[in-house]
């Protein structure tokens, strides 16, 4: 699928420079590699060392991919002291070197072999800080095609045909949302990209921002063209400094290249995009709160309807999609909506990126077609629990999702199936839990998160989550009574049914799902387990 530029040297080392690998020392490694190459007397033409984005297997960082005539070999956790050996191996194309034995990763590992890169196709391939590299890879070609060859209706038609649904967690059909915005009465309208990825254990959007920011900008520009907007915002959380830096750089480059701004690519279409940096509130990932925050107000959700598609930023129709959704758009246009819809299940099309972490051998970023079973994601791709013990549960959807027990791992991953299990797709965080994990503790962990992140506007979320966390304390500390069990049940239902926004409505999910599948653990935490009411 890649269309690499003609100037790419035959041999190159791609060094991951995304946050995960950076924290594992990728900058030092890259500097050591460059020094070793120079010391060995090789030029950049002979052996290029290219900074790229996410190479997926974050847990084994810093990752380096060696491209040569014989294919690609991947190395993980290479100490800078082995830079010389790695340069030699890359130059000779001989990857049998014993000193690198422990660092060499098998490309046939299910972790790599079972992935289908669609949204992530440029991650790990392109230099995130170079627009020339992105353009050589094909980025912005679909924007140009849309502007010159397609009407906004035709663009929306492809998105509708693709069956793409919002990847931020809600799963609202993207094409329908685009139509709703486009068909509002004439007047100003806005596009917003929600990059306020706040779920614990979720780092999909961060990887896209850090690895392939131009793809996101292309998707955003196509969306703006399709709905008739001339202003856009990317709302990124401040906790992603590298993503903010690269996004700002990408914006500047795109403006200079005439791909954003007035009269894009010689057409009458203009688009201004601004980056807005969040101030640390999780609730600002909720769309109405996010819009308030962009307007400079306190980030508090408001009741919907009206939906932002009708009345969003400054009362104007506003299209709001998350990073992964926007980043899927260029591929959908290139390959066609039908191609995208050929992947996945009846109700959930295409691919989904998951951030795999927790008690799992292969920690990192996974992109698989919708409908792949949870088991193949966590056991085959993820490699199961490191010590070989069985998986107890998989947590999806962060503080809004639930824990799916091991016996249900054969469930296909799609919006409806996960919802039926009392969890949700969420944005894509997947935390694997081993046998030693206590479920009331997991529930309390997430409930405390909700307590801290509640905006305080409505009483069920502001005061209810506090009471729920205290009730869970009693279970964790094994001093609960059967009455606490009944209270926990009742309060969870009340908070879920009466909270104002999605944060409050889904805050009880970690409790409800663990109560459903691991009720015995709660009962065992009561002083008189036998007296607990059966559901």
């Amino acid at each position, binding site marked *: 699928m890649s269309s690499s530029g003609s100037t790419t040297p035959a041999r190159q080392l791609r060094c991951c420079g995304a946050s995960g690998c950076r924290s594992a020392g990728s900058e030092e490694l890259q500097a050591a590699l460059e020094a070793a190459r120079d010391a060995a007397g090789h030029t950049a033409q002979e052996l290029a060392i290219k900074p790229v984005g996410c190479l997926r297997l974050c847990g084994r960082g810093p990752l380096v991919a060696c491209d040569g005539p014989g294919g690609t070999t991947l190395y993980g956790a290479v100490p800078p002291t082995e830079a010389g050996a790695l340069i030699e191996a890359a130059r000779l194309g001989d990857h049998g070197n014993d000193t690198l034995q422990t660092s060499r990763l098998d490309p046939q590992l299910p972790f790599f072999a079972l992935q289908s890169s669609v949204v992530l196709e440029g991650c790990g391939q392109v230099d995130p800080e170079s627009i020339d590299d992105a353009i050589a890879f094909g980025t912005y070609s679909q924007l140009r095609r849309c502007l010159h060859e397609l009407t906004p209706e035709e663009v929306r038609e492809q998105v509708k045909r693709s069956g793409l649904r919002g990847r931020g967690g809600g799963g609202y059909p993207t094409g329908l949302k685009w139509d709703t915005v486009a068909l509002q009465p004439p007047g100003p309208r806005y596009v917003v990209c929600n990059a306020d990825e706040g779920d614990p254990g979720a780092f999909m959007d961060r990887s896209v921002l850090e690895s392939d920011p131009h793809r996101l900008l292309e998707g955003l520009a196509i969306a703006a063209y399709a709905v008739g907007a001339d202003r856009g915002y990317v709302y990124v959380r401040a906790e992603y400094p590298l993503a903010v830096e690269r996004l700002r750089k990408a914006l500047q480059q795109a403006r200079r290249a005439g791909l954003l701004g007035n009269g894009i690519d010689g057409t009458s279409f203009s688009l201004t995009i601004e980056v807005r940096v969040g101030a640390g509130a999780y609730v600002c990932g909720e769309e109405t709160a996010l819009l308030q925050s962009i307007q400079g107000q306190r980030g508090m959700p408001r*009741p919907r309807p009206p939906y932002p598609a009708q009345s969003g930023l400054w009362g104007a129709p506003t299209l709001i999609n998350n990073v992964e959704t926007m980043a899927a758009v260029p591929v959908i246009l290139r390959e066609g909506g039908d191609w995208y819809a050929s992947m996945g299940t009846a109700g959930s099309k295409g691919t989904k990126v998951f951030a795999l972490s927790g008690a799992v051998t292969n920690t990192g970023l996974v992109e698989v077609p919708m409908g792949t079973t949870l088991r193949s994601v966590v056991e085959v791709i993820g490699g199961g629990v490191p010590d070989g013990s069985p998986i107890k549960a998989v947590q999806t959807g962060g503080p809004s999702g639930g824990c799916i027990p091991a016996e249900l791992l054969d469930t296909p991953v799609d919006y409806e199936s996960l919802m039926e299990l009392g969890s949700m797709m969420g944005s894509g965080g997947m935390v694997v839990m081993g046998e030693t994990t206590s479920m009331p503790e997991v529930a309390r962990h997430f409930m405390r998160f909700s307590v801290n992140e509640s905006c*305080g506007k409505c009483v069920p979320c*502001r005061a209810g989550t506090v009471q729920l966390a205290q009730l869970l304390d009693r279970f964790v500390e094994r001093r609960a009574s059967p009455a606490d069990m009944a209270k926990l049940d009742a309060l969870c239902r009340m908070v879920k049914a*009466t909270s104002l926004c999605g944060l409050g409505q889904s805050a009880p999910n970690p409790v409800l799902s663990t109560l459903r599948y691991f009720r015995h653990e709660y009962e065992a935490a009561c002083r008189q387990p036998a007296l607990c009411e059966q559901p």
Partner: protein
Amino acid sequence: MSVITLSVNGKEVAIPEGVSLLEATRAAGVDIPLLCHLDGLEPVGACRLCLVEVEGSNRLMPACTTAASEGMAIHTHTHQLLDYRRMAVELFFAEGNHICAFCVANGNCELQNVAVQVGMDHSRFPYQYPQRVVDASHPLFAIDHNRCILCTRCVRVCDEIEGAHVWDVGSRGSHCHIVAGLDQPWGEVEACTNCGKCVDVCPTGAIFHKEDTTAEKLRHSDRPALLKAARDEHVWRNQ
């Protein structure tokens, strides 16, 4: 003006188009508890007491912010709603320090009235006894955060009717509190016009006249609606 019809607890009512479900319940003579809503101020849907069931929708809708539409069928007092309302009132009492016996608003308090209305005689949830402060720096009024339920009526009346925007909400979650000016002592906020509208609308004894002692506070929660009608429609209802 076109008129729509809908049913409230099985009773058909006709109301003007464009009004909220709250007006529909009033037209049907149904009394639902309200704390954050006040006629004359923008509704925010925060207290969740006015939630109603709408047939055909699996979500509960706040009557104050939901637009009524033709043919809707709503239910206001189902067993489940009564249950949720009582729990919400318990949560209100448990999260603050509401000691009625000492309160300026005792006997004339909307929180107290709502508790009676939903039948809340005790809280099943433990009282949190939060550490909160009293700000008596203003020459005429004082705010006792112990009694605040964060309805934001003061914030809205000051912003929407008086146009001074002295009040706002600070912090998050259970640490939320009403702030004066840039989180200053109220008495130091130069924007305050001493109009006292925040005192008039406060549903509890949180904001009060300094001269009021126990059970002496009078509420004037009808004033925003009167002022709004006077300004928007040039109708002076008190004349």
